């Protein structure tokens, strides 16, 4: 999609282009890049005829009221792909799992309802690691998604399908979800922008839960502005989610006009260990230099509990997952396989319905919550989680506005290259902290290593996405302008 989300909306609003032409372009591009199962395997569900009918309906309805008030439909005619763990009434919601193979939600997730209200069209559901458990989109029951930049490589995960849809130019905005880095890491691997908002900024109602205290819907954009518009449309309090915050969102797109004067950027030393790939370190340091030259103040900071993030994450997340995934029991919806009595039905359904990574995490989570182990694992992990959160709070309280770190320790790796779960888990080493602390983070393309994109990550204080966007807009502009 050559036009930005903003240009598309303006064009449709002014009548320069029809919604139908926009949607046709999406499908044309999808066919061009091979978004289907035999190609990059980006899209799990779509209904092109229905999408075109919906486009025609929108075109027929173009009332003068929308012309008068563009704010009423900021995403008018903008096509959006949605990760397949976000409930939609129009397309299936399988979470990349066999256990929900034919499941259609009777309700729209709040984020989907808000996108539709903003004028966007949901053109398809994208591939993902099963129940968002993975960092490569290889754990999908429907086969892996391939990275559009190099189809021998993974797009990252778990929101790999949505990242690939944006990276391959099918759309400018796609929704993903984050539990430990599942938007930022694939954004880095695919060379696009990925935002994980503050926990509570975006409603989780309709996001199929993996780990409720960590999950947050995130946004991919081709550009920072695409991502800002997308986040703007879905953010804000929701009475259906008790963990959504009453704090109203800011106008993130306004951040493009702010200068960096007075902005304090912290460089946390724990995110630049000696073992870090020097080429990735260089890209981060170049980004820092660019921001400095634009007026930002940069200082070294320390987040001492960073190294505990992955162990803590792999206790808390599976614990919650083991409980959240209990509802997939074959009783009310989804897969049901018969077995010997009730227990047999449960066993047959769940052991065939869930893939190996999901099974592993359910077992892990069940173990850490069980009698006699709760204190040693879950309780202790929650205590350390508090320390990780405090690390950030202290740094931000000391006057730092935004942190800059690498998004991921590597570039996109080869499909099938990582078979050891623990090695795969380390992919989230720089991102999981933000989920544990509940703070916002985003990945912005900042360079490449051997032709593979590298993103830098901005982290900000709770509900301060705005300053993160100030830094991101500035970095994006600086890189596009070539200035160092």
């Amino acid at each position: 999609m050559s036009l930005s989300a903003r240009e598309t909306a303006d064009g449709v609003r002014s009548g320069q282009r029809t919604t139908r032409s926009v949607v046709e372009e999406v499908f044309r591009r999808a066919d061009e890049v091979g978004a289907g199962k035999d190609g990059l395997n980006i899209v799990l569900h779509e209904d092109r005829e229905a999408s075109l009918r919906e486009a025609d309906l929108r075109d027929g309805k173009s009332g003068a009221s929308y012309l008068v008030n563009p704010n009423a439909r900021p995403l008018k005619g903008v096509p959006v792909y949605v990760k397949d763990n976000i409930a939609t009434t129009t397309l299936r919601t399988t979470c990349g799992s066999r256990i929900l193979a034919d499941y259609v939600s009777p309700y729209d997730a709040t984020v989907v309802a808000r996108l539709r209200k903003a004028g966007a069209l949901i053109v398809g559901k994208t591939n993902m690691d099963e129940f968002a458990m993975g960092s490569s989109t290889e754990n999908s029951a429907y086969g892996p998604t391939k990275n559009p930049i190099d189809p021998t490589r993974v797009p990252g995960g778990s929101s790999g399908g949505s990242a690939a849809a944006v990276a391959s130019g099918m759309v400018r905005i796609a929704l993903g979800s984050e539990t430990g880095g599942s938007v930022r890491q694939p954004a880095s691997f695919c060379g696009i922008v990925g935002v994980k908002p503050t926990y509570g900024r975006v409603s989780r109602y309709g996001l199929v839960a993996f780990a409720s205290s960590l999950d947050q819907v995130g946004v991919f954009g081709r550009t920072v502005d695409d991502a800002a518009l997308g986040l703007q449309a879905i953010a804000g309090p929701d009475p259906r989610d008790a963990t959504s915050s009453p704090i109203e969102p800011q106008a993130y797109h306004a951040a493009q006009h702010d200068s960096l004067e007075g902005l304090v950027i912290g460089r946390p030393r724990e995110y630049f260990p000696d073992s870090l790939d020097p080429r990735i370190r260089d890209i981060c340091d170049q980004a820092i230099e660019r921001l400095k030259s634009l007026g930002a103040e940069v200082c070294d900071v320390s987040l001492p509990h960073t190294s505990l993030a992955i162990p803590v994450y792999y206790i808390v997340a599976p614990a919650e997952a083991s409980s959240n995934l209990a509802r997939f029991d074959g009783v009310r919806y989804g897969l049901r396989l018969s077995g010997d009595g009730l227990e047999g039905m449960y066993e047959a359904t769940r052991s065939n319905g869930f893939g190996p990574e999901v099974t592993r995490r359910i077992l892990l989570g069940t173990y850490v919550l069980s009698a006699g182990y709760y204190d040693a694992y879950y309780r202790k992990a929650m205590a350390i989680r508090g320390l990780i959160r405090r690390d950030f709070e202290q740094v931000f309280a000391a006057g730092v506005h935004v942190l800059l770190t690498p998004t991921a320790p590597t570039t996109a790796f080869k499909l099938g290259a990582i078979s050891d779960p623990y090695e795969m888990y380390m992919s989230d080493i720089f991102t999981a902290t933000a989920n544990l602390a509940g703070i916002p983070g985003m990945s912005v393309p900042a360079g490449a290593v051997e032709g593979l994109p590298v993103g830098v990550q901005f982290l900000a204080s709770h509900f301060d996405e705005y300053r993160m966007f100030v830094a991101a807009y500035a970095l994006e502009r600086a890189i596009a302008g070539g200035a160092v």
Partner: protein
Amino acid sequence: MVVGLEVHVHLLTKTKLFCPCSTEFGATPNANTCPVCLALPGALPVLNEAAVRLAARAAYALGCTVHEDSVFARKNYFYPDLPKGYQISQFDRPLATDGRLALEDGADEARSVRIHRVHMEEDAGKSVHDRYAGSTAIDLNRSGTPLIEIVSEPDLRSAADAGAFLRRLKQILEYTEVSDANMEEGSLRVDANISTRGPGASTLGTKTEIKNMNSFSGVERALEVEFARQCALLERGERVVQQTMLWDAGSGTVRPARSKEESHDYRYFPEPDLPPLRLTREWLASVRTDLPELPAARRQRFVESFSLPAYDADVLTATRDLADYFEAVVASGAEAKVAANWVMGEVLARLKDAGIGIRELAARPAQLGVLLAMVRDGAVSHSAAKAIFAQMAKTGEDPAVIADREGLRQVGDDSQLSAWIDGVLAAHPDEAGRFLAGEKKLQGVLVGMVMKASGGKADPKKVNQLLAGRVAT
């Protein structure tokens, strides 16, 4: 016998604990459901404040400390009528703790039971095994309806005390309008923990938990039966095994539950979908201020303000509605003891015969007050008043209207009474002669005859006076 009770009580909210679905009883199966209480993927719970208010009210009525901070937790287990695979409950940070319920008014501590805790939780759905042959059907209308669990300390020492505890608890829950507390309809459920120890022993014996009772008397009987079983075991030198026993009301026996039904590791952990429950001091104070007069206080007031016997106060305060009715009768001018006798007599008899509650009684308290005033003023006889009330109770007509229509007003007019007396004396010359000659015991017979002649309308007091007057002359 050492007994502690765990009582689950349905709260009288219009909607469920975590979604806006109706809690209405008896709807078409699965009609009162939504993505939240069906546990559809992606649905999230949102706490119903009305339920918290009722729970806090119950806790205060039980003398508990209600905590400003409490935490919802997930209790994890698989069951087909538990749609999420976990129940949202409270675990290590319950809503309220440390209450007390007296088994007798003004009782010393020995006759009261400590309340360990009161916490909130959601109910599960229902498995229906007898609807479709060879399959179990699931009805999730009840899924997510709000409950409180009230846990007593093991302070009960007899089955009768357990019954008294439950009856008093039910009364408090009804007075505070927290719950119907109807065990037969399932809005109150009781599990009983019981152990046995010898006289003077201070440590607790091994306990068993009895489930499946469906009436208060069932609880009492089940405790007796289980106590006897435990005693027999101990007397034979055997040990009581900690297990769950199921009461069978039909055969009056207990049997061990399958071990599967008891050995759960619920893997409790704080519910991440709900922030900790924070109640402000102001909010708690408002709940406390809004508490109605509780049964014990009302009983005491009835004895003191109305000079009623304790027995009467007990009967009249059995339900809040009945006590309100009685007080309204008194407020309309009736003398308290007279009103008490009527409410405990005619009114309760009518309710029992008609199988209705006091709210359905057509005769309103002010009308009963008028009727009692008519009796007091001699306008109607006591027996006519009963007849009038019987009609009022059905139709709600005013007593004067009924008295006039049915000709039940008492006649106290001397000339009319004298005419009836003359007639009777003339018709029965033998008795008349003997009576006038001084055979006083015949007066009663003659009064009866006059009453009969008057069709029951004559004021018997006046007839007596007039007859006595004739002898004197």
